[in-house]
């Protein structure tokens, strides 16, 4: 084989592309992974934007990375470490707070302080959600069948494919199926009364969507967060050493060790099609690479509307991809700090600084934040999910200094009048203002900040539309419908062209399933 001839070419060195490449190399294939940026990682990167301060630039929490991938690719040996992210605290407007700990008793005691009733409901709620997650989990690793519509009943049928579902009653199954189509507000109002608790729980249902807590379908996203918990001891929930870039660095090291080649600064212009088959790619710099198989691990719009001429796909397929919703709704503000933010509700340094800090005082607060986004504005009082990576991994900032990662919703991609520098600055200010209400010293300790709008996600990470999951986790964009009906099995209408990133089944997050499963399908088809 010549220098530019491979068994497989993978477009995009996000974690999914790297994982797919590693698995193909493991099966003995000659693989090259092509990345347009100078670094690998995609939305899972760590960058030193200010000297000495390392930002986990986009993704910041690891929760769903599949244990099987960690083992198969020997990621711990290649440097993967998942550090505990022990608590979540929700500051309240009255100066009090609500905290959740990894240990059951203190968590219960804390919630009891606010609502004895919720303290009891919380236990049963977790059980129900964990069982639901367990029932759904096997479905995530199946290559889905292709029913044509999606109703509670279809969902029931799908659930029954899973092993665990056999041990559930029909009633329980129905409840789970309903849960998948509900709004998180409805679900949570059935269970709880305490505002900050409901606000914080509902927040995990809107992450990465252009929906509010009252929108149907958000309860499913909420469920997603229980998936990580059912792997028991293997549970990979936490903060990756060196930030999320530490995860992709480990995967890249593993892929290279197995023999995969990774080229950075290698932007793909288009897929070369010959005789109705994908046979290679042309790079922006004019180079051509050839292979038996090409897989795109970039976002769906690029993969199907830009890399390949539409004439190679059925019109219906092109239409479906055009309709695929990739509207970004989240921003990120990464802050370098000369000290620790002093939260009014926490007083001094506390173990709570090592966990998540959630600005989500109530469901209404988040719904209002959403209302503004609906009309093309960023939220004046946004939902913010913060962590202080330097409190967890001391290598993220110089000694005594800190970095803070603030995930913000909502910041619509299609902001009225379009994003520009002034709007980005104003958005950053709004976020700092919001934090300042809870941590008054914040402005005094800022050394530098990086404000990321959905436009910036698109520009830097190369995700069309800037949606953090390459496409919203909506019911009509999940399972066998992701990225398009009939094409959820990682194959595409163009022979020799495969698709394995967050826009494919089972969706976004640093989970690796799409890349792994896509590689498996490629190998199945290998002749």
């Amino acid at each position: 084989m010549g220098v530019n001839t491979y068994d497989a070419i993978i477009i995009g060195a996000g974690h999914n592309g790297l994982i797919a490449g590693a698995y193909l190399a493991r099966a003995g294939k000659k693989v090259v992974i092509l990345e347009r940026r100078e670094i690998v990682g995609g939305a899972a990167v760590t960058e030193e934007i200010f000297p000495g301060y390392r930002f986990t630039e986009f993704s910041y929490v690891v929760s769903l990375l599949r244990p099987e991938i960690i083992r198969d690719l020997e990621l711990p040996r290649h440097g993967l470490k998942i550090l505990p992210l022990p608590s979540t605290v929700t500051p309240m407007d009255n100066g009090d707070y609500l905290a959740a700990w990894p240990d059951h008793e203190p968590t219960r005691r804390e919630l009891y302080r606010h609502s004895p009733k919720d303290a009891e409901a919380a236990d049963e709620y977790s059980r129900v959600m964990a069982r639901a997650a367990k029932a759904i989990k096997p479905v995530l690793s199946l290559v889905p069948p292709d029913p044509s519509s999606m109703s509670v009943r279809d969902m029931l049928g799908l659930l029954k494919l899973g092993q665990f579902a056999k041990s559930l009653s029909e009633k329980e199954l129905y409840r789970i199926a309903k849960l998948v189509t509900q709004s998180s507000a409805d679900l949570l109002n059935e269970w709880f009364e305490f505002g900050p608790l409901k606000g914080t729980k509902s927040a995990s249902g809107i992450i990465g969507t252009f929906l509010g807590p009252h929108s149907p379908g958000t309860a499913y996203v909420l469920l997603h967060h229980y998936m990580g918990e059912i792997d028991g001891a293997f549970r990979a929930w936490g903060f990756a050493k060196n930030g999320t870039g530490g995860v992709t660095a480990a995967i890249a090291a593993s892929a290279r060790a197995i023999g995969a080649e990774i080229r950075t600064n290698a932007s793909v212009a288009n897929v070369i099609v010959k005789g109705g088959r994908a046979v290679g790619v042309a790079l922006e710099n004019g180079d051509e690479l050839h292979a038996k198989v090409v897989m795109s691990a970039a976002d769906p719009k690029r993969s199907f509307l830009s890399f390949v001429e539409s004439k190679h796909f059925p019109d219906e397929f092109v239409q479906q991809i055009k309709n695929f919703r990739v509207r970004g709704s989240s921003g990120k503000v990464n802050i370098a700090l000369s000290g620790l933010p002093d939260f009014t509700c926490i007083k001094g340094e506390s173990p709570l600084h090592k966990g998540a800090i959630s600005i989500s005082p109530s469901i209404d607060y988040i719904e209002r934040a959403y209302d503004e986004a609906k009309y093309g504005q960023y939220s004046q009082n946004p939902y913010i999910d913060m962590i202080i990576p330097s409190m967890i991994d001391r290598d993220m900032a110089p000694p005594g200094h800190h970095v803070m990662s603030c995930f913000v919703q909502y910041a619509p991609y299609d902001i009225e009048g379009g994003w520009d520098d002034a709007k980005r600055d104003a958005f950053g200010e709004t976020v700092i203002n919001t934090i300042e209400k809870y941590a008054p010293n914040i402005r005094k300790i800022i050394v530098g900040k990086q404000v990321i709008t959905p436009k910036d996600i698109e520009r830097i990470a190369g995700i069309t539309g800037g949606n953090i999951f390459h496409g919203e986790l909506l019911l009509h964009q999940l399972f066998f419908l992701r990225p398009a009906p009939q094409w959820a099995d990682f194959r595409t209408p163009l022979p020799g062209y495969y698709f394995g990133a967050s826009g494919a089944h089972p969706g976004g997050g640093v989970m690796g399933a799409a890349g792994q499963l896509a590689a498996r399908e490629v190998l199945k088809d290998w002749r």
Partner: protein
Amino acid sequence: MLETLELKRTPFHERTSRLSVAQNWRRWAGYMVVGSYDLSLDHEYWAIRDRAALIDVSPLMKYMIEGPDAARLLHKVTPRDVLKMKEGVVSYTGWCDEDGKLLDDGTIARLGPQLFRMTSAEPSLRWLAMNAVGMDVKVTEVTDQMAALSLQGPKSRAVLNRICRDKLDPLKYFRVAENAIGNIPVSISRTGYTGDLGYEIWIPAEQALPVWDALMEAGDDYGITPCGILAMDMARVEAGLFMVDVDYNASTHTWIEGQKSSPLEMGLDWAVNLDKKGYFNGRRALEREKREGSSWKLVGLDIAWEGLEKLYGEVGLPPQIPSMAVRGSLPVMIDGRQIGYASTSTWSPVLKKYIALAHVQRPYYEPGTQLTIEITVEHHRKQTPAKVVTLPFYDPAWKKK
């Protein structure tokens, strides 16, 4: 109350008892020490592996061995070549009875031409005195007079460098040097029981608290964390380090031959200097064992996750494993026949593996051998695949750098 009826308190008790949320106390050589400060071990464990963990190891038995024959005495009682040991060197060693069976293990540090400090887990004063008959050497126990802190983890050097009179950078792995923290004279050895970068600090007991406070303050920026012995127990298994009375029995505590262990069986071949000059306790037996091969060995077992998944999957559960090291004997088999047992097993968070230290009979102790180990799944005893691996399981590049 009768004072001797209580467990002893270490010189750090004043601090450790206040910091312990869990109030989880363990016994160690007649002292009470913190098992874990937190309700879960996560934070303390990761301090060892990623930051700096401060561990009170004062209960270690400590002896000063001084005099013209100090080196001769230690040369005679241990299999290490103590005569060749340079000043400032620390040696880890086991020591044996006449039959070459382990009595205990610990470290000896050469502090001067005629001065050593020895640590042990078992009281050793009488035994040392008996071996010293006819020699010009004085053995003094300083267990209660000398407090000891173990500072373990990749940031431990940076923390010490902030407050020590002499920078720690020149101090190599298993070396010791006099130093000072503030105006308190301390001895610092680059040793520990975790297999990570780490130091042990030997402090006059009455000055213990100011040293603790200075370390906690200097370590704040590095995430220093008081750490109990339960998290250390997980780390030491990852490091392939065994513990007396858990992974082997002191031969003086045994009733039958089969309960005894030799240093060669325990995998300490590298610490048995059979090429050294002169007599030492157990020499003949060890030479014979070396010639004929050990009938069993302490090895690492890597317990396959897939096997656990399968067995737990059969009852509809994800694998359940204890969140701390388990000091319980688990049968190890080949083809359904028992050929050994695991003495400690633990989940390794850094390796994401379930691992065990195991006694395995010849010829099954060769690395790569596929065996099975017992696990109890929903009250039913099962066997699950495990592979023999060389120790240590975890050996970070920075340990010796």
